[in-house]
């Protein structure tokens, strides 16, 4: 399910609007990930505070959204552009790829909450495809 020219244009246009609230999106999505899918907490046992709105959660949300902005900038070559992040996830973090889908879902929920008008079905479609493509790039080196 590769990204068409239309998908890429849609993602870039929507992200230009959404990324202005990037920190908020990241914090909300991370908070919901840990709260609604408690099994994801297993990756963060080194944090002192896993609650919604806590400093580590907000900070990590920022990092993740930053990574997604990088991905948007490299949308024409995700495998190449996300190489370092891909190696990080494969050899150090080793996050099970199922969790990429879960985080994607939570980001989509937050986008719907924060941008109800702009997050049309067509934008939803392209963003969902984009997150799937990013997940594929991030798990590229897993095996």
């Amino acid at each position: 399910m590769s990204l068409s020219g239309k998908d890429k244009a849609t993602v870039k246009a929507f992200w230009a609007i959404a990324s202005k609230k990037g920190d908020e999106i990241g914090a909300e999505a991370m908070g919901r990930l840990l709260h609604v899918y408690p099994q994801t907490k297993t990756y963060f046992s080194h944090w002192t505070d896993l609650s919604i709105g806590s400093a580590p959660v907000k900070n990590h949300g920022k990092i993740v959204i930053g990574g997604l902005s990088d991905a948007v900038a490299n949308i024409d070559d995700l495998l190449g552009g996300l190489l370092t992040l891909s190696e990080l996830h494969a050899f150090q973090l080793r996050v099970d790829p199922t969790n990429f889908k879960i985080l994607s879902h939570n980001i989509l929920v937050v986008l719907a909450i924060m941008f109800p008008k702009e997050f049309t079905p067509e934008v939803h479609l392209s963003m969902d495809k984009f997150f799937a493509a990013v997940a594929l790039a991030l798990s590229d080196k897993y095996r």
Partner: protein
Amino acid sequence: MVEWTAEERSIISEIFSKLDYDDVGPKCLSRCLIVYPWTQRYFGGFGNLYNAEAILSNPMIAAHGITVLHGLDRALNNMDDIKNTYTQLSELHSEKLHVDPTNFTLLADCLTIVIAAKMGTNFTPDMQAAWQKFLSVVVSALGRQYH
């Protein structure tokens, strides 16, 4: 049996009490058909599904979206035995409609997103957790009669 806390029951009731079926039903089903186009395979007799605009303005899809959404009412009214509440609907989806049960989750995800868009920040993480638990129990019940 699925255990529901008092808070979860309250959250589910609250969401349903505010639910505008005539708006959410069509939005949910059409979003599913647009975001996951392969789901259109089950709607061959529903007229023009050629593009997003066609799907969004298709009256047959809108009507069916409302029907499907009302299908959740029986779960709301039987929260302590959702499993058996869906026996007949599960058989229908398996034996007559031949719907891949994976699609139930796709539709559930679209419903969650439509409700999130409507409720905005009122759709708190606690509400999302309870709502998704509710939907996953319904999805599981709908898949029980497949063999």
